[in-house]
């Protein structure tokens, strides 16, 4: 019989076990029954803490990915420029994700599963970047600070770049990029991105 745990401890244990299973088998590959079995509790206990498997999945993602407050802090500490805000929010994102590559495994599993619901969860995690880039580039072009570029495509390029850097360093551990740590790699990529869209960074 499992030891009685405090509600908060029980919740943390459920999240930890669910995270490992979701990252290994994907959202659809894991049932609530399996998570309960792994924990040695009844599914009813799980439902007491999480109303659905979907809610549990989302909470697992929330427990790994950075909090919105961190993005607020990034903006508050920035110099308001497009490049500074972009560098700060990217750093926060890669810091939180690289600490726990299970998040990236869940993202890969989600892509393979082709489920709209799980894809939506991850799309939402990229929204701060895609919306920020698309909107800012449009605004900068309107102010004549930048030649017009397709902001949506630029945001896609950025997302692909950062995601690949995370996979290369945290999942594949590719020897090709051994010389650079993840932060240096992302800084290089952001500089390449800013050059590509024709953005000139303000002098510090």
């Amino acid at each position, binding site marked *: 019989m499992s030891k009685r745990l405090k509600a908060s401890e029980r919740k943390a244990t459920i999240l930890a076990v669910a995270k490992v299973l979701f990252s290994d088998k994907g959202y659809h590959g894991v049932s609530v029954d399996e998570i309960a079995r792994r924990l040695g509790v009844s599914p009813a206990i799980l439902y007491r803490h999480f109303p659905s498997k979907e809610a549990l999945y989302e909470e697992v993602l929330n427990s790994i990915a950075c909090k919105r407050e961190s993005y607020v802090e990034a903006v*508050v500490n920035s110099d308001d420029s497009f490049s500074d805000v972009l560098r700060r929010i990217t750093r926060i994102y890669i810091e939180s994700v690289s600490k726990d590559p299970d998040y990236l495994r869940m993202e890969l599993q989600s892509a393979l599963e082709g489920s709209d619901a799980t894809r939506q969860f991850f799309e939402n995690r990229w929204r701060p970047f895609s919306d920020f880039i698309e909107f800012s580039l449009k605004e900068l072009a309107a102010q004549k600070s930048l030649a017009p570029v397709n902001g949506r495509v630029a945001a896609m390029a950025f997302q692909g770049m950062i995601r690949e850097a995370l996979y290369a360093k945290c999942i594949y551990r590719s020897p090709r990029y051994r010389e650079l740590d993840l932060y240096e790699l992302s800084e290089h990529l952001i500089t390449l991105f800013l050059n590509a869209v024709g953005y000139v960074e303000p002098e510090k």
Partner: protein
Amino acid sequence: MSDFDLELDARGLNCPLPILRARQGIQKLNPGQVLHVIATDPGSVKDFEAFCKQTGNELLAATQESGEYKFDIRKGQ
């Protein structure tokens, strides 16, 4: 006469843009003046609470009505 000194329309914008715009708006105000923000991002409630906590500005009111979130922020000293 309105109860605020500057209005920011952040409808359709998602994190971190409403916060960035609010920060720029607040910079135009004098201490004690009020910025009124209208947003549609549901996460903006948490964002503006965190923003005020981190910047020393005061969140006077946060209301929600038919999918719009309204905030009154008084600039701190």
